[in-house]
């Protein structure tokens, strides 16, 4: 029997890497996930309170109709971290966006460091490309931020993002490859389904098919379970216009930043 992993206790390189990882963890001190969950987190207090409510409602309504979650976060300090990393950590740790769609966006503003970053989840980075994020930052956010109008800058950026995501700005890199792959997958699934049905009906006689279908029917029409708490899938939490919770989305560092 090989016991190859027991004796390599002190490997200097490994220790160094662990230290680095640890340092990185310390570095990324992103604010904890808000509880109760909300989309506008004005931790640096640069947005007037009534505007904050309006923005929150705008974002919640958008999230309810499209399932895309846009979180606005202003912070007092990045703690020396790079804006892209900070924003991505928030996206990941809070779980902005739906889990299967990864359609979360974080708009980070750090007024003290005069830095901003739009971080996109895996699911939206093909529509809201880095170049488009950059354009939004440079044309809408930075001019407003320079004048000290944080709310206006953020609000207009949010509107621009809505427009991008609804397709009014057409992204430059669309390929047909995805569609082809989708069709292939679809055909494949149908074939598999067929085989399953044939096997079932061969086994159980005629009733097999009926059973398969009734089984699925129950699943589909079953009551929608609404989870309460942090890992909600964008469900309503009762009151009008309140945010139901982050969905557990994830992102790979897409987006763009700027400073003013």
């Amino acid at each position: 029997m090989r016991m190859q992993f027991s004796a390599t206790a002190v490997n200097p390189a490994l220790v160094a890497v662990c230290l680095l990882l640890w340092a990185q963890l310390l570095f990324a001190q992103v604010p904890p996930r808000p509880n109760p969950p909300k989309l506008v987190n004005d931790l640096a207090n640069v947005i007037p309170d009534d505007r904050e409510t309006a923005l929150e409602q705008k974002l919640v309504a958008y999230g309810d109709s499209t399932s895309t979650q846009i979180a606005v976060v202003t912070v007092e300090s990045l703690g020396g971290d790079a804006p892209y990393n900070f924003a991505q950590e928030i996206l990941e740790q809070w779980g902005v966006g739906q889990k299967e769609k990864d359609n979360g966006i974080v708009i980070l503003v750090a007024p003290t460091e005069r830095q901003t970053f739009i971080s996109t989840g895996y699911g939206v980075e093909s529509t809201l490309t880095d170049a488009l994020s950059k354009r939004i930052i440079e044309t809408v956010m930075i001019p407003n931020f320079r004048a000290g109008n944080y709310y206006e800058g953020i609000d207009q950026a949010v509107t621009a993002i809505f427009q991008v995501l609804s397709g009014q700005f057409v992204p430059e890199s669309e390929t047909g490859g995805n569609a082809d792959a989708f069709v292939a997958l679809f055909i494949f699934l149908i074939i598999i389904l067929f085989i399953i049905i044939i096997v079932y009906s061969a086994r159980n006689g005629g009733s097999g098919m009926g059973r398969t279908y009734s089984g699925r029917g129950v699943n589909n029409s079953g009551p929608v379970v609404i989870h309460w708490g942090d890992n909600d899938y964008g469900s309503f939490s009762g009151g009008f216009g309140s945010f139901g919770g982050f969905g557990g989305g994830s992102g790979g560092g897409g987006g763009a930043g700027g400073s003013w």
Partner: protein
Amino acid sequence: MKQFLQVTGLLLVMFMFNSCGYNRMVALDEEVKSAWSQVENAYQRRADLVPNLVATVKGVANFEQETLTKVIEARSKATGVTIDPTKITPDAIQKFQEAQNELSGALSRLLVSVEKYPELKANQNFLELQSQLEGTENRISVERKKFNETVQAYNTYVRKFPANIIAGMFGFQQKGYFEADQGAEKAPTVDFGK
């Protein structure tokens, strides 16, 4: 009786696998593989940007040929080094990283020399490419971080007793990390100010 023994034996083996974490190892191994594919995607994305970048820069009158050639060479070298996802050894990662770092270096030199060409800095196409490149460097760094985290979980698990016995039996080797790039050389250049 014989059958009873067989069934018990089978159950015992299954129990042992579970308690010694064979299944967990498989799951962690898969996580590392999927994290790796994301790392490769991010690097591939950068490699895909290079031809466009080169073409755009070339369009500018007498841009330094040597810088461009170096970028193209480094790119082909970098895309030539791939890792078999079932063999993510420290060695393999290091080779991969070296090849990619060469491309990073060549790209940063290219972007520095761009400073000398104001017409390029006003070129809309080039500016878009710049922000794409910047985003790609961010992605690389994020995916590397995620990869390192999954490898850390895997390595920690595989080295612990009694999982290390099962790991040794079934050849779950330790996997390699990405090491931090030397100095502050990490995606430096791509923040071309304004």
